[in-house]
């Protein structure tokens, strides 16, 4: 089902905040991340898509079906849009058991299987307040999917969980979303979450969509300085876990081996390195063994005020942001061979 979600609308909130967003989401990507700092209007946009808010003007359409059009006065209520909405705190019905919550808008026959798929079958008779946050999240997702939605909208689905649970829940969520076959839009302000969950992403800043595209492309080629600042200039490198010992992972990126802190990841992963965390040296011999060293060539140098953005070719593209002063001191030029150094703790692994 290759459709698209078109959303182009304006909405002024009582607080004076104005949202003016134009968004095209290709729905062949299983998970789209709506990324941006807090207060950027991500939740408002999600509520507009769900029909919980009415835009001042604009149009929203899914797969060619108009959900909202201010010019022709069309406004399809949320009940008929069937966009499953996952609230930040899950909004489970407190007076219903887990099974009743999931069966709320579905045939009871199908809910048994959903409970099992989501690993909450043995909690079926419990009330929502008697289960953990991670379990509540899975129940809420099962409840949304039980209603056979055309689209899933998730508002910061992991933010209500504590840090250790979040890591695991992120992994589970990605798997459950891909298996569901329902395209999902996930709101997050966490860049690791965006990388781990998303196939496609849209960056929202101050009420406007500033860039949209495949996740890696957005991280590697931010459209403007604002996007670059919010996503943090990131290197997102496809990698494979080859070995693990004494708490460290060995990653293969291209022909280079990197060490990273072992978070239990296996198989194909992404190694994420902030450009600010990449140091440059001409003399790799003087670096300690605990650091990762990647030999490469300077492709380009762009000065941005007191900083310089250096693009390297290490067999894969790698971006470093260093001070303009150090570029001058090292007399760096395009074509120079040097070594990029990254601390083990600066390599973040995302599955």
């Amino acid at each position, binding site marked *: 089902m290759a459709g698209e979600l078109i959303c182009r609308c304006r909405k002024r909130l009582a607080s004076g905040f104005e949202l003016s967003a134009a968004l095209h989401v290709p729905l062949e990507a299983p998970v789209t991340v709506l990324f941006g700092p807090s207060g950027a209007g991500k939740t408002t946009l999600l509520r507009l898509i*769900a*029909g*919980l808010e009415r835009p001042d003007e604009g149009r929203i359409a899914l797969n060619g079906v108009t959900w909202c059009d201010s010019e022709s006065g069309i406004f399809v*209520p*949320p*009940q*008929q*849009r*069937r*966009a*499953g*909405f996952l*609230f930040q*705190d899950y*909004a489970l*019905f*407190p*007076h219903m058991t887990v099974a009743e919550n999931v069966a*709320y*808008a579905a045939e009871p026959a199908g809910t048994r299987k959903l409970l099992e798929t989501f690993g909450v079958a043995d909690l079926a008779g419990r*009330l929502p*307040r008697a289960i953990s946050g991670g379990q509540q999240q899975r129940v809420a997702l099962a*409840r*949304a999917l039980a*209603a056979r939605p055309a689209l899933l909208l998730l508002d910061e689905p992991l933010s209500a969980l504590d840090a250790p649970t979040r890591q695991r829940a992120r992994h589970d969520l990605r798997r459950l979303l891909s298996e569901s076959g329902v395209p999902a839009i996930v709101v997050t302000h966490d860049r690791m979450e965006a990388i781990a969950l998303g196939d496609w992403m849209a960056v929202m800043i101050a009420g406007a969509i500033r860039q949209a595209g495949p996740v890696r492309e957005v991280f590697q080629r931010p459209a403007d300085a604002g996007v670059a600042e919010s996503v943090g200039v990131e290197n997102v490198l496809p990698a494979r876990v080859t070995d693990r010992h004494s708490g460290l992972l060995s990653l293969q990126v291209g022909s280079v081996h990197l060490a990273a802190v072992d978070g239990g990841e296996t198989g194909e992963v992404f190694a994420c390195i902030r450009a600010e965390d990449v140091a440059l040296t001409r003399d790799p011999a003087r670096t300690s063994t605990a650091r990762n060293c990647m030999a490469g060539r300077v492709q380009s140098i762009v000065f941005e005020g007191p900083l310089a953005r250096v693009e390297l070719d290490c067999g894969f593209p790698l971006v470093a942001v260093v001070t303009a002063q150090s570029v001058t001191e090292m007399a760096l030029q395009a074509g120079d061979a040097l070594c990029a150094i990254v601390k083990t703790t600066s390599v973040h692994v995302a599955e």
Partner: protein
Amino acid sequence: MDWQAIWLSIRLASLTTLILLAIGAPIAFWLTYSPRRWKFLVEAVVALPLVLPPTVLGFYVLLAIGPRSPLGALYGRITGSMLPFSFQGLLVASVLYSMPFTVQPISAAFAAVDRRLLEASWCLGVSRFDTFRRVIVPLAMPGIATGAILSFAHTLGEFGVVLMVGGNIPGVTRTVSISIYDQVQSLNYGGALQTSLFLVGVSFAVLAITYALQRRVWAIWPAS
């Protein structure tokens, strides 16, 4: 003890409570969820019986349902009987008089239901009415029960309004409180004492149940 008056009061209070639940719940719903800015005016009108002397309310009701008013004339043409000094007339007055005791607790209970639960329900494709029935009502049940119990108790003890609208017709409009007044007037202190004691007992029981429900002494409803 005047069992006829007690039975009449219980009938009046029960019917008033049922009617108030039927019309009070929608009013409470509207007051809670309507985006209208002038809804505070409706709120004030609903609360008027709390501050008005029962005689004032009773007097206006008497005028409003009298045979010369359009409402009373219409009722007369349809039923062939008159509202003042009848049980039905008493019922109309009681409904108006006890309205705030139903509407206010129910409205507060509706407002306490997390709005996101309603939105979650709508997004699951469930209509507004079914959401009201399946989410709002169960979660607001303690407030609805409080509203019903208070209306019942308040109607059971009303005096001024009954006297203005219903008079004192045994078996038709003579309620418990009127009966006690009569007994005292005829110096039947023993009878008055008995009936009064009965009213005190019932009132205490009803209030005790109400506050116990609010404090969740019995786990009848799950905590929200």
